[in-house]
Structures are given as C-alpha cells and as structure tokens.
C-alpha cells in the first residue's frame, strides 16, 4: 500500500477509470463494501485509495455530467477545506524558535521560519473565485475563522511566528499546556512514527516537519473550535499523530505537481472532454498536500475525538462494546459463559485493552498494511451508512469499528476461553494440552488472556507472548518425557492414546488462524452493524462458527459427556484394580465412536444471505436516494 503507484499519469488515468465505473460517491463506497472494488497489489484493477478516502471524508460529490455523460468531481468542498488551512497557516505559526537551540527543528524567528515547508504557503490564485462559490453550509466555517483572527490579532499584517505564539498564550487558559510543551510532545511522537517503515517519516525530516505542522495547528484549532462550542479542551493527544500519519501516507502516494506541466494544462483548458482530467489534477494537487491531510484528519477526528480520546468516551464505548459482544457470544449457562461474561468474571475491564484498539483504529493491533484496508471499509461504510439512522455524519468511521473488533476477538475466542474458563483449561490439561507454556495447569489465568488482547496475534503461528526461562520451556520437556516413558506399562500409554482424538480436535480449535480477509471482516461487520440485540443473539453462533472455527464449548460438552462415562469407569477401578485393562480398552472404543460435531454450515449460509440481502437493499435505497437528489 505504501509503494509508489506509478507515474502521475498512471494514477490520474486510474482515477478516471474508477470514476467511470463508479460515478458517484455512494456507488464507489458500496462497491468497496461488497468486495467488488478492491485494492490489489498487481494494479490489475484500477483502485485509488486517495479517491475513496478524500471523497468520503471531505464529502466531495461526483456526478455524471448531463452533456458529456462523463463523471465530474465537484471540487467546491475541497477548495473550501483548502482555504481553511490557508487561513490556519497564517494564523498559527509553529514556535520553532522556542525549542532548545540544539534541536534539529530549532529555527530563530529572524530566519523567516525557513524550517517550515513554506512552499505550501503560497496564496491560492483563485481565492476570490472560491469565495463566490461558497455554499451556505460552509459559510459557517468561513465566518468563524476571520472572527477568531480578529479577536486574536489586532494587526493582521504582522503574522509572524512570535505574534501568533503570544496570541495563543494569552488565549489559553491556565490549565492548558504551554505551546512549547505541545510542540515538544508532538515532535517526540512524530520522531518515532512507524518504526517499521523508517523511510516514511523517521528518515525524512521534511515529512516529519509537515506532520508536526499539521498536528500543531490541529491541536490549536481543535481547542478553539471546542472553546466556541463550550466543550472541554482536548488539544493534542498521543495517538493522533499516528492516525494523521496514516492519512498522510495514503494521500502522499497519489499527488500531482501541476507546476511541472503548465503548458499541457493550457492546451487542455479549452478541451471540455479533458475536464475530468483537469479536475483530477486539481483534486491531487501536491501544493495542497498538507491542506488535504489536515482537512481529512479533522474530518476523521471530529466524530471520534470525544469517543476515543477522552476517558469518559472510552468508558462509554467500552460498555457499548461489552453489550454487543455479550449479545453475539451470549450465555449458554453459568458453566459455559460467553466471552463478555468470562472477561468480566476475570476482572478484565474492556477499556484496559480496548483503549488502544479504539484510539488507534486498529493500526497498532493489525499493522499498517492490513489496517488501511480495514479503514477502506470503515470509511466506505461511513459514506454508505450516512443514509441509515445510525449515522448522521457522512464521515463517522467509528460506526463499524466495534463490530470489526468483535469479529477479530472471536478469532481468538477459543484461546481466550481456555485461559478464562476453568472447565476448558482443566479439560485441555487432561487431554495433554497445557493451559500455558510452563508445564503446569493454570486453572484461571487472566494474564494470558490480557496478553492476547494487548498483543493481538496477527500471524497464524504466533505463540503466546509470555517468555519464560529455559527450565520452563515445556514443549521439549513433554517430548522428552514421552521418550523417557517408552518403558511405561502398556496400559498407561493406552490411556494417553485414548484421549488423542479429542486432543487433536482441541488443539486445532485452539490454533489461531491467519487473519480473515479485510473484506470479509468489514462486510460481516456491516451485516451485523445496527442489528437489534435479539438479532445479534440469533446470528452470534454462526459468527463464532466462522471466526473461531466452531464453538469450543460444543467440543467441551462432548468431552465432558465422554468423561462422565469414564468417571463411572474410574469408580469401578477404584473398587477393583483388576478390571483396569479391560475397562481401558472399552473406553477407547467409546471415544472413537463419539460423533463429530455436526456442521452448521447450512445455517450460516442462510443467515448470511438474508443479511446480505438486507445490506444490498440498503445500498440500493441509498443509491436511489442520491440519484433523486
């Protein structure tokens, strides 16, 4: 996802193709959700992530021109967003001069803030034209900004760094941090952005500076916005840097530098057929790179800042998550509690681990390459789902997120329940699977479960994170023991073999598969999003079947049933040891005849198709709605 996608000509052409295929924002988003339109490494099918993210987050409409029957991009919203950031560049200077002089980012005021990427500060040529194009909804934002600058600044001509800094100082209340603290915090975070991809930021000072500028202006801007709305100040919160960086990286891949081919532009200007080409070039204009990242970031953040970046929000969202999880993985009995109950019983509060899942929108849990594909779905759903009652804003990407997380958690459900449920860990131990890696049975190991949730395994072969001293390394020990026990009496070995069919089944169930495809994940999440609690109850089992390779409780029940018959036999042995051999053989036959769990494949399919029909209907309605407009 992070590689360069060819020359500007390639991706302009690609965007043209995508737009011809999906000539409206909802149709593009719907195609993403249904898996028709996907990113592919081979570039075999045209796909543009910038197009999807930018149009969805900034609500840039695409329509079919009645005269040419070609798609056309309505760039008014984009131009407005760009103007807002232009104002911020003037209004909010970065106090580089307050940094320690030995900082690589230090620059004195007199050096005319040469440190910042001032190339982007060129005034827009057609500001006047843009102002005439303002629609009513944007008038609000436009009005607000001049108002602030007047209140902040008595002399608009002296917009130096020093000035804007002293302004914000006088403006800030006592509780908020000083500018230099905010800047240092942002620098500290940007300095260690994506260590897995050092060429993206760590090794590129220019990109780091751009990021720092965006984040610093955001932290100032958001506080002013919230002050006006009477909301609590938030400023910069760690984690914002990474969300912003994801957008930055995606937008950066497809940029168009229009200073390079002014001549061809002039030729095309008269040519109406190439109008779309012109629009795409403006859409991708590299001189507005920072502007667009800022705008997309603020749009992404606005619905989630209170949800995921405040402690009360995290608590609320965690409760919501617990409820939904509880309905999907519902209580079978007190002996077989669902995942939500099991976690609660172990005192593992969801916000302990969910904070990072929520706040980082899965980037930390799933890695960048995979999580941007999930973001495709989150963003597309926000766009399509805008018509449904659950979303009022067109860019609330948090709607689908809890459901995606639930599905990801179901993937490790068997393993989690093994850690959290006494019955399961005991049975696993009995058949020869250790509950943990140290060779003894842990009846109730919340640490293991927490490790899984805080170090979500993304590879299929991931072993548990707990590292132990060599003497506790058990795999070898068990093997050695087996070797040592070669001279064991036959009967004992028989009793081991007797258990093996269950052992294999259990082991298979406890294995963690590779991650499901992102399309599966977000399309399934879209299917269950907005379902009633009883519907969730109803579809829970099929989701468990699909994501955790079956319900471990079903297998446990079979084993328990089998064991209870064995227990009778154990009692017999205690009475008479002579019957040992005979009974052992008979019990081995019982286990081999134990019927395998009936497959519920048919059931899933019918559930799935029903839900899919519903989604298709929703998308269909939405499309109708948008064309009627």
């Amino acid at each position, binding site marked *: 996802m992070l590689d360069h996608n060819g020359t500007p000509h390639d991706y302009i052409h690609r965007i043209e193709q995508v737009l011809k295929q999906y000539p409206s924002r909802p149709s593009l988003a719907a195609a993403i959700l249904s898996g028709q339109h996907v990113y592919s490494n081979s570039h075999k099918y045209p796909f543009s992530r910038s197009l999807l993210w930018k149009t969805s987050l900034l609500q840039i409409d695409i329509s079919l021109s009645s005269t040419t029957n070609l798609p056309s991009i309505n760039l008014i919203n984009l131009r407005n967003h760009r103007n807002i950031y232009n104002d911020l560049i003037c209004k909010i200077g970065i106090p580089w001069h307050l940094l320690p002089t030995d900082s690589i980012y230090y620059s004195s005021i007199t050096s005319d803030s040469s440190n910042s990427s001032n190339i982007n500060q060129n005034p827009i040529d057609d500001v006047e034209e843009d102002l005439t194009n303002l629609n009513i909804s944007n008038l609000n934002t436009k009005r607000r900004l001049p108002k602030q600058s007047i209140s902040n600044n008595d002399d608009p001509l002296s917009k130096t760094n020093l000035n804007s800094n002293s302004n914000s100082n006088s403006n800030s209340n006592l509780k908020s941090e000083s500018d230099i603290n905010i800047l240092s915090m942002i620098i*500290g975070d940007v300095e260690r952005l994506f260590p897995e991809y050092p060429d993206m930021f760590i090794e590129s000072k220019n990109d780091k500076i751009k990021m720092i500028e965006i984040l610093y202006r955001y932290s100032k801007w958001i506080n002013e916005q919230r002050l006006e709305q009477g909301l609590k100040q938030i400023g910069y919160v*760690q984690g914002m840097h990474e969300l912003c960086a994801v957008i930055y990286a995606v937008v950066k891949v497809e940029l168009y530098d229009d200073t390079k081919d002014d001549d061809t532009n002039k030729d095309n200007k008269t040519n109406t057929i190439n109008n779309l080409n012109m629009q795409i070039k403006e859409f991708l204009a590299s001189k507005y790179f920072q502007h667009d990242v800022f705008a997309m970031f603020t749009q992404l953040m606005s619905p989630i800042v209170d949800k995921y970046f405040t402690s009360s929000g995290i608590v609320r969202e965690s409760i919501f998550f617990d409820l939904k999880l509880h309905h999907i993985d519902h209580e079978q009995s007190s002996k077989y509690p669902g995942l939500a109950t099991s976690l609660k019983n172990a005192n593992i509060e969801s916000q302990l681990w969910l*904070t990072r899942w929520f*706040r980082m929108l899965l980037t930390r849990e799933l890695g960048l390459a995979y999580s941007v594909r999930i973001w495709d779905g989150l963003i597309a759903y926000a766009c399509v789902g805008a018509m449904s009652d659950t979303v009022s804003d067109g860019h609330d990407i948090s709607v689908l997120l809890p459901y995606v997380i639930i599905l990801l958690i179901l993937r490790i459900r068997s393993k989690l329940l093994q850690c959290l449920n006494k019955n399961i860990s005991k049975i696993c131990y009995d058949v020869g699977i250790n509950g943990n890696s140290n*060779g003894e*049975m842990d009846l109730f190991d919340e640490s293991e479960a*927490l490790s899984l949730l*805080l*170090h979500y395994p993304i590879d299929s072969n991931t072993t548990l994170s707990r590292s132990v001293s060599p003497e506790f390394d058990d795999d070898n020990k068990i093997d050695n023991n087996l070797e040592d026990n070669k001279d064991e009496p036959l009967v004992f070995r028989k009793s081991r073999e007797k258990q093996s069919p269950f052992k294999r089944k259990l082991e298979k169930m406890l294995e963690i598969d590779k991650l499901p495809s992102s399309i599966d994940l977000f399309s399934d999440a879209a299917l269950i999003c907005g379902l009633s609690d009883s519907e969730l109850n109803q579809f829970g089992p099929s989701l468990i079947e699909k994501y955790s390779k079956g319900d471990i409780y079903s297998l446990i029940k079979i084993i328990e049933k089998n064991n209870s018959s064995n227990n009778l036999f154990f009692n017999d042995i205690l009475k008479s040891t002579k019957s040992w051999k005979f009974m052992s053989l008979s019990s081995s036959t019982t286990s081999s005849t134990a019927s395998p769990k009936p497959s519920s494949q048919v059931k899933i399919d019918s559930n799935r198709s029903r839900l899919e029909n519903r989604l298709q209907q929703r998308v269909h309605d939405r499309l109708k709605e948008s064309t009627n407009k």
Partner: protein
Amino acid sequence: MSQQSLPNKPLRSVEYKIVLLGESSVGKSSILERLQNNTFNEDKSSTIGAAFISKKIPINENKDLINLQIWDTAGQERFHNLTPLYYRNANCAIIVFDLINLDSFKKAEYWIDQLNNYIEEQLIGIEIILVGNKCDLINEGEECSYINIINEFISNHKEIKRYLQTSAKENINISKLFQDIIDNIDDEMFHPIEEENSKNLIDLKFKKNSYNSTSCQC
C-alpha cells in the same frame, strides 16, 4: 505428565503487579523491552493506552513461583484520568524519568503525589521505586546535572523505597531493578498452590496412582 516433573512443581505462588509510570519518552517501554527480550530499539512507537507483559519467575529452587504482571502506561495519560485503572491493585510502582531532562523529573513528582493520594484513599501499600533512565547519556565521571534536586527530593519523600539509575539502551541496572523487586516480595504474600490443585487435579492424582498400581502389578 511424568512422575519426574512433579517434585519440581512450585508449592507456593504470588501474583505481583508492577506499573511503570512517567513522562512520555523517558524510556518506560524500552525498560520493559530490555527485560522481556533483552533488546533495545531506538525508534520505538509511543505507547498508547497501556502495554502489558506477564512473566513467571520461579524462585527458591523452583519451590515458589512469582506471577509478575507488568503494566506499561502511556506518558501522556495523566491528562485523561485513565491511569488509576492501570495502577489499581498494583504492588509496586516504578516511576521513571529521564536523567538528562529535568522536566521529566518534575513530572515524576506529579506521579508520586498521585500515588500517595491513591494509597491514602485505598489504605493499601504500593512500593514506590524511582528510576532515572538514560544514564548512558551522562558522560563518564560526571553526575546527572540536577543530582542535587534528585537527592533533596528523595530525602523529602520517605515513601520512595529505592532509587536506581538505569540505561535500557546499555542494559545497565535493568535486571537489578527487577531482581530487587523480586527479592523484596514479602514472604507473607505467597499462598500455597497445592491446596487448590488437590481440589481440581483429580485426574492427575489418579494417573499417579494408576502408575503406581500398575507398576505393582508388573
């Protein structure tokens, strides 16, 4: 399991929870990484929310087992009141600051105040350990530039049990830090494991018996 492994089983165990607190970028996660993998990574992502590791440490010739739970918190979380969630039930708090950053030391004071409030409210004991990290950045033969402030602070805060200078990068004093904690775990905190197992490990006992009984038959 075979017979041989049984005598090696720990008889007692203790759950011991440690929480790392301190300003952003002082090296909390790096200290943990050094402890866990014995590695160091210059460019480590900022911790968001919290990170967690657990470690089982056998002591006294494997007779006792320490189940160590270590929580690594995000430096900036102090603004968000979520941190009490992480230091709840903690037995030990390691407060980390950066030896070449006086501001980070001032934040350490904030954390100690927070902890003291919490300890007073909850009437519990949390062992407080102060750690000055990045001692590799101090030139040889020299002292931390604000050593006097640190010393004065420590003498005014008797609740600080220990003070250590560490370097996660150069692996200085990291294992000592945790070894000291382990060595100082109150013996009374250990609880016997056997009791619990005898209730639940029926099958294990049975196997043992069966082994014996069958060997008698041979």
